[in-house]
């Protein structure tokens, strides 16, 4: 990926910190909540500098109380502020689903439009040697909740652009940032570039098969595409970016050309992102057939054990095998 001359190369965490800082400057009503996001700067250093610049009133270190973190964020947002709540591990989003799903996602509807909840819940997903309770990807659960927007960037530019869109949206948004993306770097356009919801990104053009992925698995898909290219298989890799709403048009146009779709995700295949993506494409093509395969984590908890974690997660080899099997 080569950006314009003016573009700057930044780490994923820097893209997030920059988006947060710029939006806090732009909107004095924006308040951040999270564990160790103050002086410490966040578990992934993605909050670096914000506490020093905006102070303890707007960059709030919280107790280890995910239900209250999200509930307070929801209440504050509904009452006139704008809130971002950082959940260090998506596994612990489970502790705060009641205020997010039972209140925030329904507040506008149940009050007949009287309330809006401009809230962003930033939840860090994925496995990186941290074990069964620090590795889960449950974004598919939230995709199914009416009233919620769900986005999951794979690049620094999209992290920046989608977080900005989320921080200007007037409803609740789940922003999924994958652990393994933090050490990655990417180009950020010199000029502020927001990324709209519901718009996928073609990460790699190709003609033989469409691979749909999101967050870290976009990199897995691209690695597989490189291998397959050497075998003469030309993969189109689509970075979904926005899971709810989904950009069905981009997927449909790609599958119209390739006739084959492989979905890749780090979460479970069952009732996952991929199966929904394939169904939306099928519904949009009303019945016109195409080949489909899904690649996801194996149906087991994700152990911190290096051997078992690797065995459980989707990797380029499994994606490659799925593509070969589909095209053979």
């Amino acid at each position, binding site marked *: 990926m080569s950006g314009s001359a003016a573009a700057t190369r930044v780490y994923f965490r820097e893209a997030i910190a920059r988006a947060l800082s710029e939006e806090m400057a732009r909107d004095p*009503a924006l*308040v951040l909540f999270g564990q160790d996001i103050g002086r410490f700067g966040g578990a992934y250093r993605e909050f670096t500098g914000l506490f020093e610049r905006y102070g303890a009133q707007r960059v709030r270190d919280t107790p280890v*109380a995910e239900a209250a973190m999200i509930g*307070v964020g929801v209440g504050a*947002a*509904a*009452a006139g502020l704008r809130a971002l709540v950082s959940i260090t591990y998506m596994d612990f989003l489970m502790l705060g689903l*009641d*205020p997010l799903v039972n209140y925030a996602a329904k507040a506008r509807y149940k009050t*007949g439009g009287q309330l809006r909840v401009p809230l962003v819940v930033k939840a860090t997903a994925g496995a990186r040697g941290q074990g069964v309770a620090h590795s889960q990807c449950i974004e598919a659960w939230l995709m199914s909740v009416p009233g919620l927007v769900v986005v999951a960037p794979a690049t620094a530019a999209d992290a920046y652009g989608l977080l900005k869109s989320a921080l200007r949206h007037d409803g609740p948004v789940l922003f999924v940032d994958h652990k393994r993306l933090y050490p990655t770097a990417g180009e950020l356009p010199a000029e502020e570039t927001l990324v709209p919801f519901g718009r996928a990104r073609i990460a790699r053009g190709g003609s033989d098969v469409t691979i749909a992925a999101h967050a870290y698995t976009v990199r897995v898909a691209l690695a597989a595409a490189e291998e397959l290219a050497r075998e003469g298989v030309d993969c189109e890799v689509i970075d979904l970016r926005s899971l709810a709403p989904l950009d069905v048009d981009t997927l449909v146009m790609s599958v119209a050309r390739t006739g084959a779709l492989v979905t890749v995700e780090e979460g479970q295949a069952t009732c996952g992102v991929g199966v929904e993506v394939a169904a939306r494409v099928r519904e949009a093509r009303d019945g016109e057939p195409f080949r489909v395969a899904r690649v996801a984590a194996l149906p087991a908890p994700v152990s911190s054990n290096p051997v078992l974690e690797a065995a459980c997660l989707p990797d380029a080899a499994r994606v490659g095998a799925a593509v070969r099997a589909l095209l053979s």
Partner: protein
Amino acid sequence: MMTAGALLRAMQRIRAFEEALAGRPDHGFQLFSMGQEAVAVGVAAALGADDQLLTSGRSIAAALARGVDAGAIMAELLGKEAGTNRGRGGRGHLAQPAAGFFGAHAVVGGNLTIAAGVALALATRGRGIAACMFGDGACGAGALHETLNVAAVWRLPLLLVCDNNGYSISTPQAMALAPQPLAALAQPFRIPAVTVDGMDVEAVREAAVALAARIRNGEGPAFLECRSARFATHSTSTRETRAADELAADRARDPIVAQARRMQARGELDAARLAAWDEEARVAAVAALAFADAAAYPASGSVLEDVQ
């Protein structure tokens, strides 16, 4: 400061409203506040225009006490477009933030952390406090602990009001909750806490006013426990489990009768005036019901409005 008479009339209006609604079982079940009017009225008396009130699902008394239009509440409870929530919320979710009634939420304990957030927003704006009413049942929920802690650490302008009617559906407080009194739950967090007779509207009003004053003064959150009694079943579709004599003893403590007697003893009220106020309340309730009945249901085609 609301007069003794204003407090009484507010309770009469609530009672009459619920009695009118109770006569109409044709709209699904309802969650009545009969017997608990003094808590809602006493707490609302301590709140001003800049304040916000949040409640549990048992919210008719609180919404009326906060001044939300009776017709709009009745319409909401009957599922009409003219309701406070355009008929979308219904029983358990009444809301009118513009009137200072941020709203009810039917998840037990579910409005506690939300209220802390509302308090934070008000503190940031620099005006107003948030009050959150919840039942004894909510005191078993972890949300109360997390709310007490963040409210104390951040000194939020939050008045936590436990409307303790002694039961969570069929479960007596003592069977489900170790703390005695429930106000003791605030102590570890060094949050000032008071327990009052929730059947005495003036006692509730005084305690709420005093605690609200501290909160407005920047001293952080406060906890008010009001010992009340529910006269009706948990909901109009729930079977009664309490003994007849227990119910009779509760009804003997009717907060409306008590306030009327007190005023009469103080020479502030005569039988004729009391009867007139009763009639006024009854007429207002009938009017609210008529308004609601005349109102239209939402169009089924509007089912996807205001989702996102």
